[in-house]
Structures are given as structure tokens and as C-alpha cells.
């Protein structure tokens, strides 16, 4: 396929599916600038891998896999820097309470609790809440279904404790 045609097809696909990328960006970064940088980096990585994408898996599975690998790699790089500004647990704890409603406050509580999970567990929760099957989550995360199931049980217990602690 000619490069121009491939690029046009890719651009149409990303324009239609960009909500998935924004969801990942919002989960891992709180500042608009960081989210924008991450969005661009993810699109670039997707574009690099697009010629090899054979549509054998769902488009969403492919997007999540590349997006999460990009996030993990970016966070690793940031953590390696002494003055890195990667998303840390503390980072999320500093988010001002912007919610005017009780519901908004609940969402902040959710972000803070999820923010305390490991980067991998955070991704698993996101995929679970996005209603992906265990099989799809396993494919995105490159883990076994059993591993995903075990991790989700542990995450559930940890989140429960974290949310209880926050509400005290």
C-alpha cells in the first residue's frame, strides 16, 4: 500500500478512536501539557507500528497495547531522571479537589485510589472497567488469563482498603 494511502487510513482510524488514547492519557497524567505530550507520543508509536498491524486482533486491543507500552516506557524514563515529573502516587494525591458535586469528589477519590496502584495494575483496572474480557486484557498486557484473574482479585482488595482509608 502506498505511504499516502496508508497514512490517510491511519489518520482516519486514529481520529475515530482517539477517545481510547485520551482515556489512557487522563489516567496516567493530570496536567494538560503532559497529557498532550503523551497523546502525541502514542500517536507516533502507533504510526510506527501501523504497517505491521494485520487487523488480526481488535483495533482497540492494538491501540491499548501500544498506548500502554508507550506510557510504561515514558514513566520508566522519567523515573530514571532525578528531577523527573512522572506520575507518582504523591502526584495524584496533590490534585486539587475540583469537584463541586459529591459525584466529582468520588471520581477524585477513584483517581487517587487507582493512582496508588502500580502502573501495570492501573492498566488492568482500566481495561477491566472498559469492559474488556479477561482474554483481551491478557492479550494487551501480555500475561496469562489466570494471572489477570489473580491480579484483579488482589487489586479489588487493595482498592477497597485504599478507598476506605480515604473516606476515614
Amino acid at each position, binding site marked *: 500500500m502506498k505511504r499516502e494511502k496508508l497514512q490517510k487510513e491511519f489518520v482516519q482510524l486514529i481520529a475515530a478512536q482517539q477517545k481510547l488514547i485520551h482515556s489512557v492519557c487522563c489516567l496516567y497524567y493530570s496536567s494538560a501539557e503532559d497529557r498532550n505530550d503523551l497523546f502525541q507520543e502514542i500517536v507516533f508509536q502507533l504510526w510506527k507500528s501501523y504497517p505491521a498491524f494485520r487487523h488480526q486482533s481488535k483495533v482497540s486491543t492494538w491501540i491499548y497495547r501500544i498506548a500502554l507500552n508507550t506510557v510504561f516506557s515514558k514513566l520508566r524514563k522519567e523515573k530514571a531522571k532525578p528531577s523527573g515529573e512522572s506520575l507518582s502516587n504523591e502526584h495524584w494525591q496533590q490534585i486539587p479537589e475540583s469537584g463541586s458535586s459529591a459525584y466529582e469528589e468520588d471520581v477524585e477519590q477513584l483517581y487517587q485510589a487507582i493512582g496508588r496502584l502500580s502502573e501495570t495494575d492501573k492498566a488492568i*483496572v482500566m481495561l477491566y472497567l472498559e469492559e474488556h474480557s479477561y482474554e483481551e486484557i491478557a492479550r494487551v498486557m501480555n500475561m496469562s488469563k489466570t494471572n489477570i484473574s489473580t491480579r484483579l482479585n488482589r487489586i479489588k482488595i487493595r*482498592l477497597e482498603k485504599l478507598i476506605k482509608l480515604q473516606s476515614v
Partner: protein
Amino acid sequence: MNLDELKPLWEIHKERADAQPHWTEADLTELLRRTNTHSYPWLLNFCMTLLLISATGC
């Protein structure tokens, strides 16, 4: 606690994600053009190095 209890809250997260600036096809094309252009200095450096090596013979 059931993780499904978090789903209503997750809907709010999705609404926030939906409210992010929308990238049009033109924006995305421009982004790809910029990222493609960024690779040119590398290519230019590589070609210049090859040229200098062949010109100086070392």
C-alpha cells in the same frame, strides 16, 4: 467490594477523556508530517558523515 461498583465513576472518567481537545484528521496529518520531518536531521547527519568519510578516505 466489587470492581463493578466503580463503573459509574469510570463513566465520569470517560466523560473527562471525551472532553479532551479533539484532534481532527488535519491535526493528525500535521503531527505525522512534523514527526517525519524530525527524522530528517538524522538522515542528513548520516549522509554528511558518509560523504566526509568517502571524501577524506578515512
